[in-house]
Structures are given as structure tokens and as C-alpha cells.
């Protein structure tokens, strides 16, 4: 059986300007497979600039990989043409981080939602199209009669973000790439929208790549997690292992930095070593070296590979080099579905 989506050793390097020698490796040799028969929710987490959006853009075919291949249902996505390409564009949908920039300010909400319905011929008639639109808006907690006809600037931040999610719902994709889909809504709505996404996976077999820095929601909705730092996988595995028992020093810092909605638990017991703005370019060794409180001699010459700690957990850190190494192509084996 061919996979729904397969990333094979994908890297993306941005070079600044044509003449400049400075380049940023936004994603470094990542491999990941999603199977159609086992729809799942994978979280991709990591701080700002770790390559999360780059990953999303690559998977959507918006940018081309510098190295490696992305294969959708057996075909390299750069080679999709005609009918196949249309199918890919309908089946792989995105909900983006920044609701302020995605919408054309001159189109009303119903226009934004009805265009994809028409384009992909998803409705039998006008009435059917309208019902689909209403259903999707209600699912994300919006009042259709109030919202339809509005322009994007007439909506609150969270309302725009929800229109984004509704748009993806209308299309019933096979794969949904959700880049911070709920960062701007309140906790109650966040729960409602995430539940909607989870139902999408359970009832309609949609696989979801959930990109977020919110590890609490990741824990609730996803089965597995991949933690990125500066384009490399730091830790990966089941959410239960990685979030409840983080091993990599970077993951530990991330978990420790969660602002708990608990008045008796103070924020950040561990100091943040170096601030991101003070970091110069990458060293040859571990990408986390400059900030790592455990840095050792052996971390300097080369980046650590993944070391497998248990069936569903591995960390790229020399603190664990007594454990078996895992090739980066085997990442998917760590992720329960």
C-alpha cells in the first residue's frame, strides 16, 4: 500500500540574496511517513525559527525542497500535473498561523468560503453550498448570519482564525496542515476547535499535522510529537513520553517554560541560558550547544544522531549515547498512530 505522504530526507536551505554567502538551513534531512489507512495527528513543536512553517510550506508544495523528495500517494509533488494536481490541492489543506495576512481584504467571508466549494465542485447546488458553509461556521463556534457578508477587517482576531479553520472543514481534506490554528482564541473555544479537529481525524480519517508551541493542547489532541530546533529533530515519540517525561535538554526547557494556568506553580524554574537574539550562527556540533546547560566536549565536533530511549521515544543528545542510534529515516517508527 502506498503511503499518503512521504518525506524522504528533505532539507530546505534559504540563502539570503543572490550574492550573499549567508544561508539558513531551515529544515535538515527530515523523513516522515503518513499512512492513509491509519489517520493520525502528529504535533510538530519548537520555538520560533525552528522550521515549522517551512515544513508546512514544503508539504503544501508552496516552496521546493533543496534536497530530498516529498511524495503524495506515490507521486513526487513537484511532478503532479492536471487532474492529480487538483486532487492534491484539495486533499491537502492548510490552516495558517497568521489570520491577518491570508485573507484578501476585499472579499467577504461567504466569498472566501464559497470559492473553494465552487472550484472543487463540492456542492450539488447553491443551497447545498450554503448549508456546508453554515455547518462549518457553526462547528467553529461562529454565528453564520452574523458573520457572512463581513469583510476580514470587520472580524476580531479569533474570528478570523476560526474562518480559516472553517475553510479547511468545508473542503474535507485527507491531510490537514494546521500551523498554530488556535493561538488567538480563548481556552473554551480552543477546546471546541481542537475537538472538531480530532473528530475530523476520527470520523473522516483526516491526518493532521498540528504545528504549535502549545504543548498542553498538543498533549490532548495528538498521538505523537516531533520537536524541532533550528531545523533538526531534537526529540520525537509519543506525546505521553515526550511531554510527560522529556529527556532532551531543549525539550525540558520547552516544557519548563509552559506558563501553567496554576497560581501555585511559578513560571520557569530553569534559567534560559542564552537568549535567541544573542545566538550567532550554527556551530558544527549540536545545534543546541550554546544554550545547553549540560554541554560536553563531545557535543562540539558533530551534531548528535537520534538515540532511541524506548519504543516510542528518542532524543538527539549525547547524554544518551549509551542507547542505540536511530537513523533519521526511521523517525516514523517512533511515532505511534
Amino acid at each position, binding site marked *: 500500500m502506498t503511503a499518503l505522504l512521504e518525506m524522504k530526507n528533505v532539507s530546505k536551505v534559504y540563502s539570503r540574496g543572490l550574492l550573499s554567502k549567508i544561508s539558513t538551513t531551515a529544515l535538515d534531512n527530515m523523513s516522515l511517513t503518513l499512512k492513509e489507512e491509519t489517520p493520525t495527528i502528529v504535533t510538530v513543536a519548537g*520555538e*520560533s*525559527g*525552528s522550521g515549522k512553517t517551512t515544513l508546512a510550506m514544503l508539504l503544501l508544495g508552496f516552496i521546493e525542497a533543496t534536497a530530498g523528495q516529498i511524495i503524495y500517494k506515490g507521486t513526487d509533488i513537484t511532478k503532479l500535473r492536471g487532474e492529480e494536481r487538483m486532487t492534491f490541492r484539495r486533499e491537502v489543506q492548510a490552516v495558517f*498561523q*497568521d489570520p*491577518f*495576512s491570508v485573507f484578501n481584504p476585499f472579499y467577504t467571508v461567504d466569498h472566501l468560503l464559497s470559492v473553494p466549494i465552487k472550484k472543487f465542485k463540492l456542492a450539488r447546488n447553491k443551497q447545498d453550498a450554503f448549508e456546508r458553509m453554515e455547518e462549518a461556521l*457553526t462547528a467553529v*463556534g*461562529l*454565528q453564520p448570519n*452574523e458573520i457572512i457578508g*463581513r469583510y476580514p477587517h*470587520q*472580524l*476580531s*482576531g*479569533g*474570528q478570523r*482564525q*476560526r474562518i480559516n479553520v472553517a475553510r479547511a472543514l468545508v473542503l474535507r481534506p485527507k491531510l490537514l496542515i494546521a500551523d498554530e490554528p488556535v*493561538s*488567538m*482564541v*480563548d*481556552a*473554551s*473555544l*480552543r*477546546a*471546541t476547535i481542537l*475537538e472538531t479537529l*480530532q473528530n475530523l481525524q476520527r470520523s473522516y480519517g483526516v491526518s493532521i499535522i498540528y504545528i504549535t*508551541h*502549545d*504543548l*498542553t*493542547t498538543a*498533549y*490532548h489532541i495528538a498521538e505523537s510529537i516531533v520537536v524541532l530546533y533550528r531545523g533538526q529533530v531534537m526529540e520525537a515519540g509519543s506525546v*505521553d513520553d515526550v*511531554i*510527560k517525561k522529556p529527556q532532551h535538554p531543549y525539550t525540558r*526547557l*520547552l516544557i519548563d*517554560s*509552559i*506558563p*501553567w*494556568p*496554576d*497560581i501555585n506553580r*511559578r*513560571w*520557569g524554574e530553569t534559567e*534560559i541560558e542564552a*537568549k*535567541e*537574539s544573542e545566538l550567532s550562527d550554527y556551530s558544527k556540533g549540536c545545534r543546541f550547544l550554546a544554550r545547553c546547560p549540560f554541554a560536553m566536549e563531545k557535543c562540539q565536533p558533530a551534531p548528535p544522531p537520534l538515540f532511541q530511549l524506548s519504543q516510542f521515544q528518542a532524543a538527539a543528545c549525547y547524554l544518551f549515547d549509551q542507547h542505540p542510534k536511530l537513523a533519521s529515516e526511521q523517525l516514523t517508527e517512533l511515532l505511534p498512530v
Partner: protein
Amino acid sequence: MDTMLNVAAKESDIGQATKPVLELENLRVSYYTDAGRAIALDGVDLTLMAGEKLGLVGESGSGKSTMALAMMRMIKPPGRIEEGRVIVDDTDLTALSEQDMLRARLSKISYIPQGAMNSLNPVLRVGAQLMDAMKAHVPDMPKDEMQAHCIRSLESVDLKANVFKMFPHELSGGMKQRVCIAIGILLKPKVIIADEPTSALDVVTQRQVMETIDRVQKQIGATVILIGHDMGLMAQFVDKVAVMYTGRFMEISPVRDMFLKPAHPYAQALIRSLPNLENKGVFQGIPGIAPSLLSLPGGCAFHPRCPFVMDICREQRPPFETFQENRQVACYLYTEKARS
């Protein structure tokens, strides 16, 4: 320190926690949409002392940004401030001329808008954007002094001086957000409103940005209103929390009380909906959907979703009243009238 700016924030004012720095009186805003008049802010009263940090939370679309924009007098048509006063440091902003209001922005009250980092001009260097703000407020200051001041402002938010010469796209999200904070504090305002300053940032950067706001706030003795949805951030950062629903305050309580014994049923539901690492896969959204602002339900706006609804809740709007020391709530569960 340059003299011009010391006028804006006299050291002697700081620490006088007895006098309110900010007062809102019956602030009311409507948007006139095609479908009718939406009352987005429905008579809000608020008093904050110097150095206080208020968290403003509530359903998406409940009027939080509208309240901030109204305080800045930045509501644009089809929106309109219908009535009310905004008093900062004894000045009624609603009575100022356009010209004076222009000057009050940034120097008396500043607003770091939702999605601020995307509002930086992509083709202007960071420095030029800071200098523009300076020129508008202190046009007579010598240029090198202005520049030195801007760089100090960048440094106070943990950015290096060379950021002055950079373009926004050369900065990470966290750095851009800090540039926006640097602009917001440039003229040492009395009131800083930060609208979801960290919702697009990861937790580590979030912590750095909040620590920055905290430190700067203490330095200039400003009052901060932090708008957001992240209750974790609120628990860690603010002194008081105001919960808004359909353009009205439902409850204002000290942060401890809000988290440990929220009073208003909506506040209770909001606190209950917070995820933790224990009850995996349990989503506790509040059942029902927020009402349309075009036709709010009569009485208490929360009554159709409230598990404790009584007859009176459907008939009359509950007053926003003090029910315990430092705590205000708009709910009949806490008034004498309903009990009798």
C-alpha cells in the same frame, strides 16, 4: 536621560499607588454593520492604579480589542464611541482635540496591537520606524539624541543596538515583537495596552518577552493591560483579571481569587476549560455559542448558557457590583435582590 522625556514620566509620580492612573467611565462602542448595529462595548467601568497589571480575558469577539482601540480613540467607521470617558492621569482623552490626542498616544497611553509584529513596515529599517515615532512627539530633539534614545529603548527589550539598522524580515518573530514593545515604551507612557503580545510566539520566547514587559513596566511605573487568551500567562503575570463577555465585564478579581474561586458562572466555565496534563483528551469547552451582538439576549447576556439561570436573569441585566473586597461581579447569584 533626556529632559523632554522626563517630562512625560516624572520619577516622583511613580509609586503613588493611591491615585488612579486610568479610569474608564461607561465606555460604549457600536459598529454599524449592514446587518444592523452591533454593540461591541456595552458600558464599561474600570479603575487602575499606578503599577497595576490587569489581565483582560474573554471569549473571542467579546470586545477586548475594541476596548483598547476605544481607549486610544482609534475606532474607525463603521465603529463609533457612543459615550463614556477615558481618563489617564487626570486628562480626559475623549475631550482632547485630534491634535492633542495624537500627542497623547505613545506618551500617555500606548497600544501594542494584536498581531503587532506583522504591522511593522517591511521596507523600512527598524530604526527609521522608531525615529518616526520620536519625530512626531519630540520634533525639536537633536537627531543624535533621538537615535541614542531609540537604541536605549531597543536595549531595554533585550535587543542589540545593531537591530536599529535591520529590516523586519531579518528578525525572528520574538525579536519583531520586542521591537513593537520598544516602540510602545519609547515615550514612557502611563498606560501600556498589550493585545496578545505573545500569541504567535513559542513558550521560551514568550517567557522572555513577558519578562521584558515586566521589567520595563517596573522601570517606568506604568499600568499594564494585558489582553489575551492564555490563562497560563495571566496566572504568571498579572495582578487582577477582568473577564469580558459580549462587551461587558462579568467579573474583576485579584488573580488568585480568579483562579482559585472564580465567582461568575462564565468565569468558572472558562477556568474549568483550561487544559492540563492530567485529563488527556477531555475537552471542556463551554456548551453553546456566544450570542450575536446584533441581538443580545435580554437580562444577563450569559443566561442562555448558564447552568444556574434564574427567572430574574432573563428579565433584568445584573449590575456590575462589588461583592467582596476588591472583587466585582455582574451576576444575580451575588446580589441581595435575587435572594429575597
